[in-house]
């Protein structure tokens, strides 16, 4: 008896609470806009352009929204519908809609695997000719990155590089400079361990960050900077000394404690970032403009930090980061209003678009000559961009083998030789 009275009370309380929340907290800001739009749409035939991206944090939505506003101001009969879907679900959902021919008009696409396969599937609009019409001239190495079988299939919006963020304040305390060689980095790791600190925080749970360490070493072990693309295309074998040396370096880093333990159980931007922010690790990788904002927000005033690339083999060698296209968008072939969609992409990449990119610490994919104040960090990244090397493997099976194999290296369950063997095996499929 007593119990049921208690129960009724709880239920009543919950109902009241929920009612209160729904009235006071209300809905998100987007609701009224949608309602207004639906009414309008009923009145006139509006063209709807669906736009998908997974970068729903940081400043990317600001950039997208700015383009949307400018575009809709000039084209009152068009309604841009932006959808953000978190990355892990993005690909699943995309495949479903592609198979059902419900693809969005414009959508973001990752490079490795998906891009080449989609390009070859005939589901994308080839853009080679369109890019010559009304779009800025994208950097040549970027144009290379987005070509598949000789045609361009995507519009690159911005670029990024991956570097190591380091705790400047801590470095000064420890008397460190920027490491100029592998051995120097290893020595630094040992000194840090003596002080109970980790060296480089790395989160490889979602696989990709771990692979990038490998690519970063290839930038040094292969001075020609062509071998990776060749191996990817099947022209040479992955069983080449350059790749073996690269993975051996990472293996040694792992053994000597350069890489903080637990890499495989941390995701890149939560666990690992926090090691850095909480000053338990002196460095953090990979850092590019997609996360610099987040780091700045979290670090605040507690310490000063900046960026440098992985150190080269020998002191005195040039330091080279890896990088490439950040956001790139494709147009679905069997969608309507393709010219409108392309026009929207022009607005994203024109001068006004570039200006808003730079204002938000992004690096446009074409020359920007405007006048914007640059932070030190931004100049650093811009500088790195001009020297960046590739971090892309288009063959999905090989790329996955790289990612999984690297987890094996960090977990010390795979030897470098076994890693290379797994790549060769994957390439054969």
């Amino acid at each position: 008896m007593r119990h049921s009275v208690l129960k009724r009370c709880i239920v009543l309380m919950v109902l009241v609470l929920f009612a209160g929340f729904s009235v006071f907290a209300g809905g998100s800001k987007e609701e009224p806009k949608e309602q207004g739009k639906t009414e309008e749409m009923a009145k006139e035939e509006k063209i709807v352009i669906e736009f998908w991206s997974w970068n729903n944090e940081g400043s990317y939505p600001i950039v997208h929204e700015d383009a949307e506003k400018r575009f809709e101001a000039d084209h009152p009969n068009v309604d841009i519908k932006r959808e953000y879907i978190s990355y892990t679900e993005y690909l699943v959902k995309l495949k479903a809609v592609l198979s059902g021919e419900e693809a969005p008009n414009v959508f973001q696409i990752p490079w490795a695997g998906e891009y080449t396969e989609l390009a070859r599937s005939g589901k994308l609009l080839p853009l080679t000719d369109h890019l010559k019409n009304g779009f800025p001239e994208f950097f040549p190495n970027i144009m290379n990155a987005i070509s598949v079988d000789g045609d361009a299939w995507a519009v690159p919006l911005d670029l990024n590089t991956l570097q190591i963020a380091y705790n400047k304040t801590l470095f000064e305390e420890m008397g460190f400079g920027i490491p100029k060689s592998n051995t120097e980095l290893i020595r630094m790791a040992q000194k840090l361990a003596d002080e109970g600190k980790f060296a480089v925080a790395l989160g490889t749970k979602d696989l990709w960050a771990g692979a990038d360490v490998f690519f970063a070493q290839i930038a040094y072990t292969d001075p020609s900077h062509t071998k990776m693309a060749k191996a990817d295309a099947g022209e040479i074998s992955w069983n080449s000394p350059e790749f073996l040396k690269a993975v051996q370096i990472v293996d040694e880093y792992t053994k000597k404690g350069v890489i903080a333990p637990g890499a495989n159980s941390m995701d890149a931007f939560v666990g690992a970032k926090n090691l850095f922010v909480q000053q338990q690790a002196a460095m953090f990788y990979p850092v590019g403009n997609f996360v610099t904002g987040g780091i700045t927000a979290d670090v605040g005033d507690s310490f000063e930090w900046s960026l440098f690339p992985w150190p080269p083999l020998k002191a005195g060698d040039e330091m080279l980061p890896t990088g490439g296209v950040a956001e790139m968008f494709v147009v679905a072939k069997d969608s309507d209003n393709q010219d409108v969609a392309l026009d929207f992409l022009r607005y994203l990449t024109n001068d006004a678009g570039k200006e808003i990119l730079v204002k938000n610490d992004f690096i446009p994919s074409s020359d920007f000559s405007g006048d914007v104040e640059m932070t030190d960090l931004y100049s650093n990244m811009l500088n790195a961009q001009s020297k960046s090397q590739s971090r892309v493997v288009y063959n999905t099976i090989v790329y996955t083998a790289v990612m999984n194999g690297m987890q094996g290296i960090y977990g010390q369950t795979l030897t470098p030789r076994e890693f290379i063997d797994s790549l060769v095996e994957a390439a054969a499929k």
Partner: protein
Amino acid sequence: MVLRRTARIGFLFSLPAIVFFILFLLIPVLSTFFLSFTEWKGFDLANIKFAGVSNFAELIEDKIFFISLKNTLLFVAFTTVALNILGYIGAAIIDSGRRGTGFFKNALFLPVLLAPIIIGIMWSRMLDAFGIVNQLLKAMEIIKMPILFLGDQRIALYTVIGATIWQYLGYDMLLYYAGLQGVPYELVEAATIDGASKWTIQLKVIIPSLSPVIAITMLLNMIGGFKVFDIVYVMTAGGPNNSSHVFATYLFQQAFRFNRMGYASVIAIVIIVFSFLAAIIRLKLVRQEE
């Protein structure tokens, strides 16, 4: 006369269910079966290529598939056994009617109501290298270096199994508790009068009369185990280095990361077949008892 009428009405009564089953379960499963003989990227319908049994042949050679097989069997075995034993103990505790059992019952059932995704996120955060569990262990000086619950290939799977057991303990417990209500009190009374000890009563009287409950609980656990996806996906996504893949996560990876719907469909068939076998084995065992 009456029989035929009831038979016809029976058919009509069960028709809606059958229609649902055919439309939204049978046809998709048949499609999956059909797809397992094809090669399909999953996003262009025009390009489904017939591939004969090549997918099956590849499956037999697939090292990662066998890892997922081993892991799924381990998962099913550990969760089923642990959930049943612990569930029974929990049920016995609630049944004793002591103070606090009502709270205890609700407390243990609460995780069952939560989405597996949530449970996965919860435990992942707690078991981080610098999450609360490691913090406490370090503070109590049990360990010096953090234990990599989800990052160490040797224990990742067991960590996920542990979280699953935590989630579903209340479920088995309630099933057993309900079963205990159905145990005829006279039997227990008779045994007590006969001077049997508490243990003997448990073993010889209560548990045997619970055998239908045990059978169905184990069956539900096993079927759930073969299907498991959400929680593994959220906690490890099959990693590190493919060490914690179970059938469903491997299927997902093949279908949506590698764009190999045909191959993934084979794995789907394997899941269905295994669950089916488990159900049949259980049926046979029950028949034997009777």
